[in-house]
């Protein structure tokens, strides 16, 4: 049963068009298959390609590079609608735009943009973002993957962990150490696949089964000088600036999961009979559902507010962190309320509630855990005194 979400003022015609197209596609082409795909741990690559054909996969890629050239607000709306149908599908789009196209657009030179962006927009290529390592997650500055300088470029050696889209990727945004230990010794690179890069098997995980998550092993993997993204030693800055935008899409993903959970809880409670009528008569059923309904609207407005700041070219790091911190928690709670409202059926794989429950949790972890979001917000509040 669809529940109308809160909509901020001032959505443009193009943002609304992207939202409507994503909703139609998600409801018709993704939602009906989500349970089956997730149960089979199937990454629906053909659906990602179709998203490319209709312009949603490379949504934020400018028209001169073959995309529709839309903004962060559109990306949030699209990610949310896809996540409402299937969280794993939404993250493929979020990564392609927010973590792959975004750093290439921000730091790439013309040649790099021409080489990668048109094919990322069309869905011919999928990209991934390789920052996290087995021993460096929240503490990204401690990453150990090394890039040894050769005459023509670098040879990269090290392991990257939890890389979304890694199993289907043709484009790799890699963060590696070209210099000294610490934040300033890290550089960003963009490359296709090649000898010296092995892609691990899918990592078994709690949820998000339609999303590919793998470990990447680099062993003297050659990257030419032309693969350097931005200036040498500026990699961590680029990584963190990229995550400023990425967080907004994770918040949007959380809102999408939460909306799906709310909608299922409402429709189920309306139908389910107990004690001589629908359980939707009981205040004990109403209150948790009413509460998440209010929180979802708040989360959505926070998220779209952060996106609108980004689109206006204003600082949005803390706003995005607030949106992600709040929305991810709302998603986890909404999924919990959904399972509880469905009772035993909520625990059963026959319904989507348990999937929302498993998928919601990731939004509190990736692209900065909830603790890290609190740190970002605190630094914004306390400045240097927070360090």
């Amino acid at each position, binding site marked *: 049963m669809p529940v109308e979400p809160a909509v901020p003022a001032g959505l443009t015609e193009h943002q609304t*068009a992207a939202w409507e197209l994503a909703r139609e596609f998600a409801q018709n082409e993704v939602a009906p298959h989500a349970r089956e795909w997730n149960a089979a741990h199937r990454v629906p690559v053909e659906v990602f390609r179709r998203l490319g*054909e209709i312009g949603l996969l490379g949504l934020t890629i400018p*028209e001169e590079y073959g995309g529709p050239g839309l903004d962060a607000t559109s990306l949030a709306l699209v990610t949310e609608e896809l996540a409402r149908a299937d969280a794993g599908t939404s993250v493929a789009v979020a990564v392609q735009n927010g973590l792959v196209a975004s750093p290439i657009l921000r730091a790439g030179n013309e040649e790099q943009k021409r080489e990668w962006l048109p094919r990322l927009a069309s869905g011919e290529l999928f990209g991934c973002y390789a920052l996290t390592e087995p021993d460096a997650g929240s503490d990204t500055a401690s990453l150990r993957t090394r890039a040894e300088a050769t005459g023509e470029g670098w040879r990269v050696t090290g392991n990257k962990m939890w890389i979304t889209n890694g199993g289907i990727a043709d484009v790799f945004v890699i963060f590696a150490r070209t210099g000294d230990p610490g934040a300033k010794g890290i550089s960003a690179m963009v490359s296709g696949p090649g000898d010296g890069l092995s892609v691990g098997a899918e990592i078994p995980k709690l949820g998000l089964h339609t999303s590919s998550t793998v470990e990447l092993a680099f062993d003297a993997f050659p990257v030419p000088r032309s693969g350097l993204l931005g200036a040498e030693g500026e990699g961590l800055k680029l990584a963190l600036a990229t995550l400023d935008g990425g967080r907004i899409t994770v918040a949007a993903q959380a809102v999408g999961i939460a909306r799906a959970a709310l909608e299922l809880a409402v429709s189920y409670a309306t139908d389910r009979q107990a004690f001589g009528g629908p359980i939707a008569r009981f205040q004990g059923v109403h209150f948790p559902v009413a509460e998440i309904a209010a929180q979802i609207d708040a989360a959505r407005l926070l998220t779209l507010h952060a996106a609108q700041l980004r689109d206006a070219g204003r600082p949005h790091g803390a706003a995005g962190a607030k949106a992600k911190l709040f929305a991810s928690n709302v998603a986890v709670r909404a999924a919990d309320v959904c399972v509880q409202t469905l009772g035993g059926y909520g625990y059963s794989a026959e319904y989507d509630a348990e999937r929302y429950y498993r998928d919601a949790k990731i939004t509190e972890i990736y692209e900065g855990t909830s603790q890290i979001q609190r740190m970002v917000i605190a630094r914004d509040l306390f400045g240097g005194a927070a360090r």
Partner: protein
Amino acid sequence: MKIAVCVKEVPDAGPGRRMDPGTMRLDRSGERSLNSYDLNAVEEALRLKEAAGEGEVVLVSMGQEKALESIRKALAMGADRAVLISDEGAAGSDLVATSYVLAKALEREAPQLVLFGQSAQDSDGAVLWASVAERLKLPMVSQISELEVAGGQITAKRQTEFGYDRIQSPLPAVLAVADSLNEPRYPSLKGIMGAKKKPQDVVKLADLGVEADRAGQAGSRTTVSALNPPPSRGDTVKIEDDGTGAQKIMAFLVERKFA
């Protein structure tokens, strides 16, 4: 090749769809969209154009001016332009008047192919294409589930209740496609953003040389004398489930020879 596709805006299905008791016409004030069967015709026209590598796809519609909003969906899919006949004098046109006006618009466009959807979801006549073809004196094939265009003629597989006909016809021709013919594409975001800028001609009856007495109520041969709800079915059986509901339903179906 120039292809015209006749499309119609219809009120969305659902409880909101109703007859206006005052005018005794369909209430077209609520949510509206393009007749979904027409999307199959649009899709086929686009495929024919893409396969030929050249050509033009023109949408032709009669309806209210606000129908342009729905018609833009077909422009977003890739049609090149739209002609909408919108005129106070066309209000209340029945089959006879509608087919006359559309035929006049199509004569002006002179396409090699005219495509129709199989039927309109609101009035569900599934007849308009036949009357338009008759007025244009063109060959006509309906319920097309496979279509080939080559060498100045078409070969169509026509779905019937008893199997398939294979029909060849010279061009120009009028074709009504079945919804099994293809899977309409989603418009791309760029298509949606560009649709508004494509030519959308709103024309009056006079522009087409349609005489006032051949359109609207004046040009119609039908009058609606009364509106009544369908009579209730006397033979409805209500089964309360006391644990034997399934057996009772089964027995009912067997008795009626449904199972």
